[in-house]
């Protein structure tokens, strides 16, 4: 269990280091810095999606809306109300958390497809409020001249490099939090829910409460990403909260790898890069990009990190499994042999009647209750 030898950790660290060093190469390239910084803002929101979708398995389609709330919170507070960026940022994130928690209260009553479409409706309502509530949000006119973060005389965040490192630092916190969650009992709780809510219930997991927290946490990350996005781009319009943003995030997490630590970051960067790359095709870029998206989903369904991680895990697991079997040879060996079909040798006695009668009983409570 030596962390230093785990290829996953090495890979993630390498990606982060590489990203952290990009300003060395591109400091003069405002365009590259901008695209990467905006991509990182999205990545933060994608880390939120990773908690609710990747870990907990709930397809939340309101993430674009939460991103928009964060963005508009910072945007409106720093302009119309002339707050400092930091105050606005903190308040927006708290606001997103509260709204996220409240939405979760109702949304999590629904399940599966209903949950997905329900959250899509929430996301769309958020978008409609932002794009129609003219007196407060300025609707389609957008919010102009969002403040830069105050550097307190130490840092000038108007510099793209400083801004890059601000977003980078917050992104790092997200990556680390994801890592910490994943290997803790909190992460285990969420993964348990993802695999089977009934089984989670059976081992005493507080399913509803945990989902609720995961939903709120994902909204918070969305708000953080949105708030940073507002200050990075300086002008925000209702498109910051649109359903397209949600699908963009989904694409990022899917390409990167759901439920992985490095996936959201890698996915965001790679898809952003692809989108920029194919800009030269202008209107026709989606004739190429559309099929690429489909192909990625089909051929790398667990995303790039999931795909690479699959190899690594398999190898190391096999090694560990073999080691465990070798070392424990003296312990027990009941599992070694499995011969014969399950029902071949039935004793012809009283019990037999019961057994054969039980051929197709529903097992888990859920399958019994849906009858």
């Amino acid at each position, binding site marked *: 269990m030596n962390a230093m030898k785990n290829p996953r950790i090495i890979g993630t660290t390498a990606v982060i280091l590489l990203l952290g060093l990009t300003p060395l190469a591109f400091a003069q390239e*405002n*365009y590259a810095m*901008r695209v990467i910084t905006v991509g990182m803002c999205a990545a933060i929101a994608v880390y939120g999606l990773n908690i609710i979708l990747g870990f907990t398995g709930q397809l939340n389609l309101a993430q674009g809306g939460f991103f928009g709330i964060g963005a508009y919170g910072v945007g409106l507070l720093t302009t119309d109300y002339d707050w400092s960026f930091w105050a606005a940022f903190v308040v927006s994130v708290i606001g997103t958390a509260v709204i996220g928690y409240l939405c979760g209260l109702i949304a999590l009553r629904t399940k599966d497809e209903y949950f997905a479409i329900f959250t899509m409706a929430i996301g769309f309502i958020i978008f409609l409020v932002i794009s129609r509530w003219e007196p407060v949000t300025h609707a389609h006119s957008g919010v102009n001249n969002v403040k830069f973060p105050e550097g307190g005389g130490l840092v000038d965040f108007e510099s793209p490099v400083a801004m890059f490192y601000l977003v980078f630092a917050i992104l790092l916190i997200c990556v680390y939090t994801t890592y910490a969650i994943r290997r803790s009992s909190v992460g285990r709780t969420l993964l348990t829910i993802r695999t089977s809510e009934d089984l989670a219930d059976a081992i005493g997991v507080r399913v509803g409460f945990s989902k609720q927290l995961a939903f709120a946490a994902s909204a918070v990350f969305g708000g953080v990403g949105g708030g940073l996005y507002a200050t990075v*781009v*300086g002008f925000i*319009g209702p498109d910051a909260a649109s359903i397209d943003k949600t699908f963009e995030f989904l694409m990022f997490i899917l390409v990167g790898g759901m439920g992985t630590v490095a996936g959201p970051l890698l996915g965001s960067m790679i898809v952003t890069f*692809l989108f920029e*790359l194919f800009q030269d095709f202008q209107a026709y870029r989606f004739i190429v990009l559309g099929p*690429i998206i489909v192909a990625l989903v089909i051929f*790398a369904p667990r995303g790039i990190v999931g795909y690479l991680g699959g190899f690594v895990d398999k190898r190391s697991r096999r090694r560990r499994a073999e080691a465990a079997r070798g070392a424990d040879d003296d312990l027990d060996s009941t599992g070694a042999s499995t011969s014969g079909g399950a029902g071949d040798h039935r004793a012809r006695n009283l019990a037999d009647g019961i057994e054969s009668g039980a051929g197709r009983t529903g097992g888990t409570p859920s399958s019994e209750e849906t009858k």
Partner: protein
Amino acid sequence: MNSVSRSRRRRLSAAAVLGAIALTATACGGGGGSGEGDTVVIGYTGPLSGGGAAYGENVKIGLEMAIDDLNADGVEVDGNPVTLELKSLDDKYAPSTAASNAQRLADQDKAPVVVSPNAGAIKAIQQINSGRSNFLVSAYTSDPAIVQADNPLTMMIPPNFESYAEEFSETAMEHGGKKLALLGTQSEYGQQWTKSIKDAWSEAGGKIGGDNSVDYATVSDFAGPVSKALSEKPDAIFVGGPSQPTALIMEEARKQGFKGSFLVMDQAKLDEMATVTKLDNLKNSVGVLPVSEYEDPGTEDFLKKFAEKAGEKKVPTSETALNYQGIAIIAKAMEAAGTTDDPEKIREAISEALPDVDDKYKVNGFPDEITEQGHLLNPNLEATFLNEDGKYTKVPIEQVSDEK
């Protein structure tokens, strides 16, 4: 066994896909950036896909036509011949993407000028165009907020839309009556127009019903909104959004028995609307003058060239014509400034370049001055009233100040 080979095949195909992407990436990355020093890139970011694609394409045609004509005539800056080259990027109408695109055009393609046809996008671009990056925004929007921002590197092409409201109101009242219904689109621009028309109409002593604005892009059936607007028994209706849906709304209103007059927002062009509905439905409307009704020295040739390029069926609009003019002005300003890579000097030189622009580029109300904030002003702005006989009569417009 079978499943093993299947999963391996799958993994191989995944690797192939990833590999292909990586290859394309390097191939495209290597291909960029031509070496010739006498080529100047004019950047364009606009909606080339998605809901605004038609609009973005119209602008692009104007830019292409201008650049073709200018290159054929020859542009000479500081004694050297210069070739103009258009580089277009798609922003799907998203302001943040537009700003990224503009930054890319300025950084990678060294474009001194970037054209953008949407107010939100321009506002986002104005966050970055005069600071670390330096480039001139050729702004195709009639929203005066663009020039109110005091951005030193902005050139606003169309007239301020607020100029129209007063004259539109008076004309419509003359041909209709005092009661107005509002049925414009729910876009940024539509909302601003609605507000402006509301003010002008009340000032002229008219009455206004409820605001029935709907998003033209998402409404599946216009019958409902139209019925509601007509229930107030208006004498005139304000409509407007993209030409074709606007035409549909007017058709529906006529079908439901509306006899009064229409005030048509400048985004919709009466001649373009006539391609999707009968001219009868459009009569008794005040709107902007179709390009084909202009009598500028270059208009006729422009119409011919446009038909060659875009086909006889397509109606030339001011998006195309005004951007055609705009690029000609910029090219002349480059010549006057003697530089292709100093946006500040180019911007400064626009004023002196205006009178020198060749007549052939004057097609759609050519400006004779540029304000300090960067607004090109056409001295004889005219709108039109489409009368009962289906004839366009001109309505002179007095331009309002850009100040708030």
